C-alpha cells in the first residue's frame, strides 16, 4: 500500500477502542482472562514487600 494512501479518520469511539487495545496486547476484543492478566500486571507493578534485589 502506498504511503500516501488516504484513510478515513477514525471516529472517537474507534480511536478509544484502538487506544484501549494497547492495554491488552493489541487485542480488540479482550476476554475476561485478558482483564485478569492485565489487572495482575497492575498489582505486580505496585505491590509491596519485594525489594529491588528480589529479597523480601
Amino acid at each position, binding site marked *: 500500500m502506498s504511503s500516501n494512501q488516504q484513510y478515513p479518520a477514525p471516529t472517537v*469511539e474507534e480511536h*478509544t*477502542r484502538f487506544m*484501549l*487495545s494497547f*492495554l491488552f496486547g493489541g487485542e*480488540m*476484543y*479482550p*476476554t*475476561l*482472562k485478558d*482483564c*485478569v*492478566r*492485565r*489487572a*495482575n500486571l*497492575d*498489582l505486580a507493578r*505496585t*505491590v*509491596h*514487600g519485594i525489594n529491588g534485589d528480589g529479597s523480601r
Partner: protein
Amino acid sequence: MPTSTWPAPFTGSMATAVAKTLRLSGHALVERQLAEATQSAIAWCQGSFDAWHRRACVELVDHFCEHGYPIFYIGQAQKWLNMAVKYALMLQPLSMLSVSHADSLRQVAHIPIDNFILEALKPMGVSPLSCAWSRIADYEQYSDYQTQLRVRFSGLALLDVEFRVWNMESSRRRNGSTHQSPTLDAPLT
C-alpha cells in the same frame, strides 16, 4: 489474616514448578470470580456485591495460604479483583466485552486501593489507612475504608469518583503542583 505456619513446601526447581502452578491456578480462580461478577443472572445491589467481594477476596487469600504461601493479603486480593472488574466495565460500553447488568455493577463496584489513589484521596478528607494498602490483612479494615468512601462521595458511583480523582492526581503530578482545594463539585462525565 494470613498466619499459616506452613514451611515452604518445596525447594529448588520443584518450588519453581509449584509456584508456577499456583500462579496459574490463581489466575484461573480470579477469572472464575470475574465471570461471577460480570455474567450475573440478576442485577447487583450494594449488599450482594459486597458479600460477593468479601467471599472472593477471602477465597483468593486462602488459595495461596492453603498451598503454603501465607503471604497474600486482602490488600493484594482487592487490588487484583477490583482492577479486573474495572477493566471489564471499561470495555463494556465500547462493545469490546459483554457484561451482564453492567449498569448495576458500575454503581456498586469498589475503588481499587493503592498508593496513587490513597494519595489523591488524602486532601479530600478521607482518613488514611493505618497500614500499607497491600498489607491489609483484615477484610473489615478494607470494608470500613470503602464504606468511608461511599459516605464521603454519597450519591456517586465509586468508580466514577476514582476515574475523576485519578485524573486529577495524575495531572497534579505532571504539573508538579501541590494539592489545592480539591473538589469533585464539577459534574462527572
